[in-house]
């Protein structure tokens, strides 16, 4: 974009200037944005890393490898991977049903998919406890159990894969599938060889987001987990109890691990997007 500036005094009639708010204005804008983001986001996060590493690598390492912290981090990772895997399969399946199937009530089903994003996380936990808690009418008590925590994580991560895959599936050209079918390909072969490769980038992106959300979730798990160390305590809940007992060093150390994991997922997503753009 080239900005042409003309001196109004040069011509007989003032030439309208093509102004782009660049120069000093741009510098001011960038400065403002950078300082705002620094104060609101960067500085606080840097404070965590500083607190965690302030007493050297040894202190950091011993804080994240205490039996309780290590158990919480391990549980967080395992649950995150499980939740991501379930979402990859079931999320794709739900997206498929929403796009390729027709049945009464489909529109309602499509609308409630977003509910977990709109619902406060503490309400999500409470809602699950109503059906799967100690007073369960179906006699399925998941309270204070790892399966309960997993159910809570599945609840809050539900929309990620569905909403990533759905638009791609809508745009997908049916002609390729029809051609394969006319050549005698089995239905499953068509799905595996033609549909799935086209959906894969969307599934991967949705799954990565679901994983990132699952390892950081707090509100939905807090009621259903009962915060039992070594059993149902995930990393975010562990951080919370360390803050409550004023042990900010331990809390900051575990937080740093979560931050690094979040950063890794974000970078992986960006790399995937760039790869996708290059392919297209």
């Amino acid at each position, binding site marked *: 974009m080239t900005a042409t500036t003309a001196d109004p005094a040069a011509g007989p009639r003032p030439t309208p200037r093509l102004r782009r708010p660049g120069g000093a204005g741009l510098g001011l804008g960038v400065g403002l944005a950078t300082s705002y983001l620094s104060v*609101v986001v960067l500085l606080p996060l840097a404070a965590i890393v500083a607190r965690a590493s302030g007493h050297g690598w040894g202190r950091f390492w011993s804080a994240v490898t205490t039996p309780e912290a290590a158990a919480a981090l391990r549980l967080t990772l395992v649950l995150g991977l499980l939740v991501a895997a379930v979402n990859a399969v079931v999320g794709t399946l739900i997206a498929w049903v929403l796009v390729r*199937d027709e049945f009464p009530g489909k529109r309602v089903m499509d609308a409630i998919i977003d509910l977990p994003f709109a619902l406060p996380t503490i309400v999500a936990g409470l809602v699950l406890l109503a059906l799967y808690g100690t007073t369960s009418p179906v006699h399925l008590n998941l309270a204070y159990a790892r399966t309960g925590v997993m159910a809570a994580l599945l609840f809050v991560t539900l929309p990620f894969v569905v909403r990533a895959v759905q638009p791609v599936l809508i745009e997908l050209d049916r002609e390729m599938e029809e051609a394969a079918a006319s050549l005698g390909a089995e239905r499953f072969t068509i799905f595996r060889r033609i549909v799935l490769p086209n959906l894969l980038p969307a599934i991967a992106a949705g799954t990565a987001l679901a994983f990132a959300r699952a390892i950081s979730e707090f509100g939905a798990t807090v009621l259903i987990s009962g915060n039992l160390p070594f059993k149902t305590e995930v990393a975010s809940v562990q951080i919370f109890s360390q803050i409550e007992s004023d042990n900010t060093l331990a809390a900051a150390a575990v937080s740093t691990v979560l931050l690094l994991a979040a950063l890794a997922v974000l970078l992986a997503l960006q790399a995937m997007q760039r790869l996708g753009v290059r392919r297209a």
Partner: protein
Amino acid sequence: MPSRGGRGALRAVAVGYLLALLALPLGLICWRTFANGAGPVWHALTSASARHALEVTGSVAVVAVVANTLSGVGLAVLLVRHRFPGRRLLDALVDLPLAVSPVVVGLALILVYGRTTGFGAWLAEHGVKVIFALPGMVLATVFVSLPLVLREVAPVLEEVGIEQEQAAWTLGASAAQAFRRVTLPAIRWALAYGVVLTLARALGEYGAVAVVSGRLVGKTQTATLFVEERYQNFDQPAAYAMAVALAAVAVGILLVINLLRPREGS
């Protein structure tokens, strides 16, 4: 294209999963909340502590939405319309809040503004209380919902392009005029969508606010903290009433979003 039987099985799995995870638990909690009619629910929601919690939630949400709307539009214009060194870094940084655990956000704010830090102590000396007070809760809420407006507005800004704005400048419009008369109308639905998303997130935030508020009943307790505190104190009717009220707001917000979404394309 699965066969008739396969299609039915897929449909059954999808519907069953959503029923078990979403619809049935939500239905059950509504049914239990209104088991004795609407009277007890109204009573629970209008108790002094519930009203106070709703007020705190409302004021924190309003400030956070205003802050994130202003910064979101400003950042979107900056990132889409301008090229400057460090732009991609800024672009990546903006997404970070969505990936950070709410508890980590709370801890981060405590480590900057808490009484044990130099800055926090200095602020306290000058009578500014951030942690265990509203400013900290606003900061936490602003943090967790930071990119929502920006991420809705930026793609639309990119799509509408620069031509109309240039035309406005050519005709002698000031930057403010061009923004108000040309840019703002073009992004208004995306902006509304982003504002609604931010509002939903701000009303529902729990983890970050739980850490920085100190959870002082009748002081810094928000609606979501009220749900947790009442539930832990075996006051199930009050916890359910507030949860259903928050869920109703969430459903209302979803409806608004669904109304806004199709109009984006037109």
